[in-house]
Structure formats: C-alpha cells, structure tokens
C-alpha cells in the first residue's frame, strides 16, 4: 500500500515538475506509438474496406488469418523483427535494430491485424446496409470503399483506438528490438519494466500512472474530436 501511495505522490511530483527524463520518455512513447498507429491505419483501414466490399479467392482465409493474428504474441514478433533486422539478417544493412524505427515496425506488425479485424467487422455491417443502394447507383469499387471509410469513420476510430491501446502498452517486442537504451529507445513500458527489476517500485508506479493518463488522454481527445456519443450521431 505504501508503494502505491509513494507511486502516486511521485507521479504527481514528476508530472508537476515536468521531469526532463519523464517528458522525454513520454514523448518518445507517444511518437513511436502514434507513428505505428498511423502506418497501421494506412494499411488496415483500406484493407478492411476491400475485404468488406470485394469477393475474391482466399478472402475468407485472409479474414481468418487476420483474426488469428489478433492474438499474436508480441515477444515472438519482437524476436522475428530482431532476426530480420539484425546484422546477419536480410534487412541488417538498413541498420534499424535498436532504433525507434525498429520499434515502430514491431508495433505495426502487432496492431495491424487487430485494427483490420475490428474495422472489417464494422465495415462489413455497414456494407450489408449500403450494398443494394451503392450497387444500384452504379458506383465504382473505389467509390464504395471511399463511402464506407467515410461513413464508418467513427467505428474506424474505435478500431484505431484499440490499436493505440495495444501499442502504447506493448513491452515485449519493443524491448527486444529497441533495446531499452537510455535517451534513445527507452519508452514508458520498458522504463517501467526496468525500474521494477531494479526494485524501484515507486518510480515504476509513477511511470505507470503517467502511461495510463496518456492513454486515457488520447482516447478522450479522440472521442471529443470525433463527437461520438452525442445526440443524432453515430
């Protein structure tokens, strides 16, 4: 109980004094996660719309695979990305291992199936609602995809937030590919892990509270900007 109270006190203190290390780690956490989210959304949302609208061979297989990959173990992803980016790996020449780029790549691999699957569920329902209308209007496939993405934007925002939640709380993969290097690749989750292993529970808790606050702040801001849960909206 003492540790918890100390953690809260320290979190308040670190936040109020804008502790330089805390600010740096928090900003890096946000930067890595938001970059991964941006790249993932670029891949996942159009893919979800295509899977909803188009019928092609292996479509069901792709959907089943994506659903299965939602539970992809991050440590395994980290290991695979590590091997691919390590000096002896096929992409070793790029020199990305132990950089924030490697962390972004790992997070993209982890959250893309999650965002695609959730977005696909929503867009599939929207497509069944719009199907006859859009077909009767002689719309092109691209127009259908664009219409679904626009009209389903609030559901897609939820899918993206689920991806954000998974990415910002991720530790296993980014620890492996980022290396938790101070002032380079250390983020909130890896810092918490480090402080815990050092036995500095108060600081670990303080970082944890900051992490939770960041995640909540991003969620609230997105919902506020998206004007969800207001009368006459979807």
């Amino acid at each position: 109980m003492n540790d918890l109270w100390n953690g809260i006190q320290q979190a308040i203190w670190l936040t109020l004094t804008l502790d330089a290390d805390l600010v740096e780690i928090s900003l890096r956490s946000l930067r890595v996660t938001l970059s991964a989210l941006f790249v993932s959304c670029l891949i996942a949302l159009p893919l979800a719309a295509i899977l909803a609208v188009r019928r092609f061979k292996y479509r069901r297989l792709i959907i089943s695979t994506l659903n299965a990959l939602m539970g992809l173990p991050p440590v395994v992803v980290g290991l695979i990305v590590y091997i691919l980016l390590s000096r002896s790996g096929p992409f070793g020449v790029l020199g990305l291992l132990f950089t924030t780029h490697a962390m972004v790549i790992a997070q993209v691999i982890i959250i893309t199936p999650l965002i695609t699957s959730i977005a696909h569920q929503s867009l599939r329902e929207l497509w069944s609602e719009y199907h006859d209308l859009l077909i009767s209007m002689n719309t092109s496939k691209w127009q259908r995809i664009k219409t679904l993405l626009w009209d389903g934007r609030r559901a897609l925002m939820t899918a993206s937030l689920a991806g954000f939640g998974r990415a910002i709380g991720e530790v296993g993969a980014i620890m492996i590919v980022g290396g938790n290097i101070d002032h380079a690749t250390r983020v909130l989750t890896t810092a918490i892990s480090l402080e815990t292993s050092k036995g500095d529970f108060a600081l670990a808790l303080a970082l944890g509270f900051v992490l939770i606050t960041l995640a909540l702040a991003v969620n609230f801001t997105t919902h506020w900007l998206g004007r969800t849960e207001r009368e006459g909206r979807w």
Partner: protein
Amino acid sequence: MFPMNACNLSVKVRQKHIIGPINLTISEGGITVLMGPNGAGKTTLLKALHGIIRLANGQVTFATPAKTAQEQQSFVFQSPIMLRRSVLENLAYPLVINRQDKQSAMERAQTWATKIGLSAHMDRPAPFLSGGEKQKIALARALITSPKLLFLDEPTASLDGAATVEIEALLSEAQSTGTTIIMSTHNIGQARRMASRVLFMKDGQIDAHSAANAFFDTPPTDAAQKFIAGDIVL
C-alpha cells in the same frame, strides 16, 4: 434508351427458382405498376430489370449501350437506405459520385430538399428522420439525376396517407417530365390512381399485362380478378 426488353429472364437463388422465364417489353413513358400476392416475385423482377441481381438466364437489353442505360436508371427500395450523412449530403451523393462539382451538387440538393419540404432539416442526419421523410429523401435522391427510368419497390408500403400523397405527387411530376416509372405496390387504390399499365405477377411469372383501364375494368385472368376483388390469391 427505350424500349427495354427482358428476354427469357429468370432468377434463381441458391438453386431455387424465383422468377421466370419472363419476356417483357417496356416502352418509354407512363407508369407501369407491378401487382401480385406476396412472394410472386415483384421485387426480384424489379431488381433483375435494374441489373442489381444476377440472372440465371436471359438478358435485359436497351436501345442504348448497357453502361449508358445503367447510368440513366434509379431505384427506390421499400425500406429507404439512408447514408450516415446529413439530408443534404444524401441528396447530393448521386451527383458527387457522377463527378459533378460539390458546390453545384449541394445547390441542387438544397433545391430538392426544399421541394420535398425538408429545408428545415437539411443538416440533420438522414437516418434519424421519420419513415416518410426518409422515403421522400430516397425518392428525391433517385430523381436528382433526372433518370429516364425509375424503379420503385413498394415506395409507400409503410407510410401514412399524407406521406403517400406527397410521394405520389413527386412521382406524377417525374412522370410528366419524362421519367418512365416501374413500381410495385400492394395498394390497389394506388395502382388505380397511378398506373398507365399493369403487370400482374403470380408464382414468379407474369400472369397478366395490359393497359391499366382494361386491367381494372375486365381483369384478364382469374387470379387478377380475385386480387382486384380483394380475395386471397394463393
């Protein structure tokens, strides 16, 4: 574009025969009303003529190339499908997808919103309006491109008298400005008011096809006679 010819048209759903073989010619102008008991195949025939369901056999041809003919048709569904957008954006949608510039599309949409008495609700989300209002939007959205051929599937099935009068007025006006209309209805009174020709369907076949006056004065088949008399046609 006219005449529209359906030749040996038949539709199957999961190997079950739904309608056909049907041979039919629709000339330009007037309102052709499709009547018949539930399950006779009215909706399927409308969708097959419009080209939004796959034909098991036969074809539908026009005097113009298929693509041009497709662009000059609109369809209004029994349950109006509203895009998750405002009234104005719903009305402008067919113009926008036909690459009309957004400004003029919106101006035209405003004119139609006023015409259907929804100028006060232009910015409201269309799916939250009443059934009658949604059906008026669906009809206005179908007419905004000035189609040469308009299909309607029981457009007033769930509407009250006042809304029905408004819909019928819009249809009469569209017909007088050169739109050929094919609509299904269960409402014998509406068929008497609107029809210039009647197609009576039974068991997936056209049981009778004649001018409206002749159909109602001397029903050409027993089933048509029973239907007009208000008897149950099995």
